[in-house]
């Protein structure tokens, strides 16, 4: 992507990107009880990152987000796999989940489920996959 000089886009992006990121985190967290989940959340996060790339160009985004998105893919897969294998510790079959309610200061009673950890794996993988695909195609200069 060439570095664009588009003021309106950049200004709008600086706002929209954070709304998108916030929305994606909401989708991810709420996924267990209302529409959403790791997959959609991951896609929306990726959309926010891609929007940043489009508005500010690749070098700038690499500076503010020094993340290698390719590495997110194995990390996400590893999180999902380890969550699945965590059940072995408790001598229950692969991919058995559990949940419980905990009292937290300030938040009150909150439900925590190991399924969320699994969903985190999904989330990370989807972000990594989507950004990797779009960025590598978009930056392909050879063709």
């Amino acid at each position, binding site marked *: 992507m060439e570095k664009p000089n588009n003021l309106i886009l950049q200004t709008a992006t600086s706002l929209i990107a954070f709304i998108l990121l916030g929305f994606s985190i909401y989708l991810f967290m709420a996924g267990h009880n209302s529409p959403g*989940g790791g997959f959609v959340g991951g896609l929306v996060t990726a*959309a926010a990152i891609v929007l940043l790339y489009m508005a500010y160009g690749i070098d700038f985004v690499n500076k503010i987000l020094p993340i290698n998105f390719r590495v997110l893919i194995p990390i996400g897969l590893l999180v999902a796999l380890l969550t699945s294998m965590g059940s072995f510790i408790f001598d229950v079959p692969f991919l058995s989940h559990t949940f419980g309610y905990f009292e937290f200061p300030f938040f009150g009673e909150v439900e925590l489920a190991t399924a969320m950890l*699994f969903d985190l794996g999904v989330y990370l993988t989807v972000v990594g996959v989507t950004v990797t695909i779009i960025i590598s*195609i978009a930056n392909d200069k050879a063709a």
Partner: protein
Amino acid sequence: MIFAVFLPLLFAIIVPFLSKAKHKIHTGIFVVFIPLAIFLYFIRFIGDDFTPLQQTYNWIPSLGINFDFYLDGLSLLFVLLISGIGTLVVFYSIYYLHVSEKLGHFYVYLLMFMTAMLGVVLSDNVYLLYTFWELTSISSFLLIGFWNHRERSRYGAQKSMLITIFGGLSMLGGLILLSIITETTSIRMMIEQVDTILTSNYLPLILVLILLGAFTKSAQFPFHIWLPDAMEAPTPVSAYLHSATMVKAGIYLIARFSPIFSTYEWFFIIVSIVGIVTMIWASYMAVRQTDLKGILAFSTVSQLGMIMAMLGFGTEAAIFAAVFHILNHATFKGSLFMIAGIIDHETGTRDIRKLGGLLTLMPISATLALFGTFSMAGVPLPFLNGFYSKELFFDATLDLEQSGGSFISFLSEAIPYLAVFASIFTFVYSMYLFFGVFTGPKKLELLPKKPHEAPIGMLLSPIVLVLGVIVIGLFPNLLNGSLLTHAAQAVNQAVELEHVHFWHGFVPALYMSLIVVIIGLILFLTRKKWSNIYHVLPGKFSFNKVYDKGIEKLDTYSTSVTNSYMTGSLKLYMSIILAVILLATFFVMYATDGFVLKTDNLADINLIDLAVVFIMVLAAIATIFVHNKLALIIITGIVGFGISILFVIFRAPDLALTQLVVETISMALFLLAYYHLPELRKIKDTAKTTTLNTILAVGIGTLITMVGIAAHSSNWFATISDYFVETSYKLGGGHNIVNVILVDMRGLDTLFEITVLGIAALAIYGLIKVRKNKEAE
């Protein structure tokens, strides 16, 4: 017994090490003791009070496949032939093959063949029999192609392989059917259940399959064509495999199974006719050959036809004659091949047109050949065993049972005349062979080498065989009681001890022999005058051409069949795949009355649904007619977004969200690739393919719709979704059922789906970044 069978194969393991020292000591000298030991082991069984011997060793007992060895009279005769002639052939090969040849290979193949052949004749288990049977084919293939730098050797080896393996496989089919019907794998048990087999519906099929196996192996008409080409093998191999042993495997098979089939009239008809036709055709063709081994090859085919015909007759006299002739043929044909090899070795050619007048130069060979050829011709002299078996053969043709249909009685009437006719030509080629080589003018200038008598070692084996000819000729009853009657009884229990006499009065068989000799002599002396007949029959026709053309056509047709659909055109493959799906699914659905339509379970349709679907249909139809790629991408997007609206309408928020985002991303990807997408061309199809494509597309669409409707109309079981609705919160702790199913209840699917995504991303990254060769694009 198992050690006797596998001894050659075991010894073959150390042959390569022995052959390292072949320049000091010829490998054959070690090998010769193996068949000799086997011969000595088995010769002890000869005797008037011989009783069959059985031994069993487990191999695959659960399938009934075991090393069941059974030694009866017939096996004993063959075993002695195999080991006895094997000894002589190995001894002969010591002098025949120079140490510069690949001796290790030669003896390994030969020993392998010996095991295989012993196994064939000693097996009582049909599957064991088949195993050894194919091993003979393979080792014979290796031996024919021994001089594999010669094109003719490779051709002959391939030809014999194709034909004998074809027969072997059909024999396997017959054996499997037999063992299914009788529920046993033992041949003797099968023979005890003759009635079961004879009343089976599969009887004709079994007969044809087993006969195919026997006819191909024993080079019967019209499968005889591989044998003359197998003469490219070294002469010891021709002498051993293609005269005395392997070609008799088919004979053995027929003899072994004849207690089962002999009362079946088609067995008599087919085997007799094939045998007689083979005998006539091959003896007729043998006169035409110019190569010594060619003559002998056709002669072998002809003699095998004669034995086959006698087995087909199935009468007591015929069976005894067949067994007797098996022994006689092995003696004189083995010696003749060895003499042909000696002539080749000492003069450098086997072409009978270049040979002549060798009588004075090679007197011992000439004497041996004299006995061999005259015995083969059946000249009535008391020291030639061929005469006795020919007499017995004529006797057998005369007293055929005349029962059965009119065709059988006609056949019985005709066979004696045909037998005499074939024997005349046998006489002619035997005389031609002997006098053509050893008398007449010397043509030394045509010969590559200066001819001289062979070394004594080389002559020893044919001398032993010719001694056999003479001894059996002088004392024809020598082995009768102790060996041959036992062998004949294994084939037909009614055979009694017979006495063969040289002189048995003025009987029809004697007149037939005299007719053969007289007409044969006349024909031989006037051979040049009538040899033009070969331009008329067979003329340009030959079974070799049929075979060659067949192989060639098979090749071209299979290539053209493959080329006709493997064009490399993805469009064509797609059409074929879709057409197959269409036809197969349609016929399955049609045959099972799968197309049902029930309307009692349908939801109401409202206007919004209709509107969305209408727009999607319009967009879908538009994609066919749009030829602008940007427009095409956008129109395709309409369909995708339409689907997400439908998800909203049908209350699937998660799906709607995901579909929306995924559709957006894939449209973005399409647009990213926009510049690189190929220009959309109007594909210039012929009207025919366009029509076909339309029919196919419409057909697939209709079919899938109908399958969908049918699937909806037939509710077999209640769905399990109630369970998810009930337990989603209780077990998974979440209210979003879709998400609980995805990450909890069916988390494994999700785990692998994200793996798929990860692989896709890394593959795309790899494809784009890792371009080793930019020119390849």
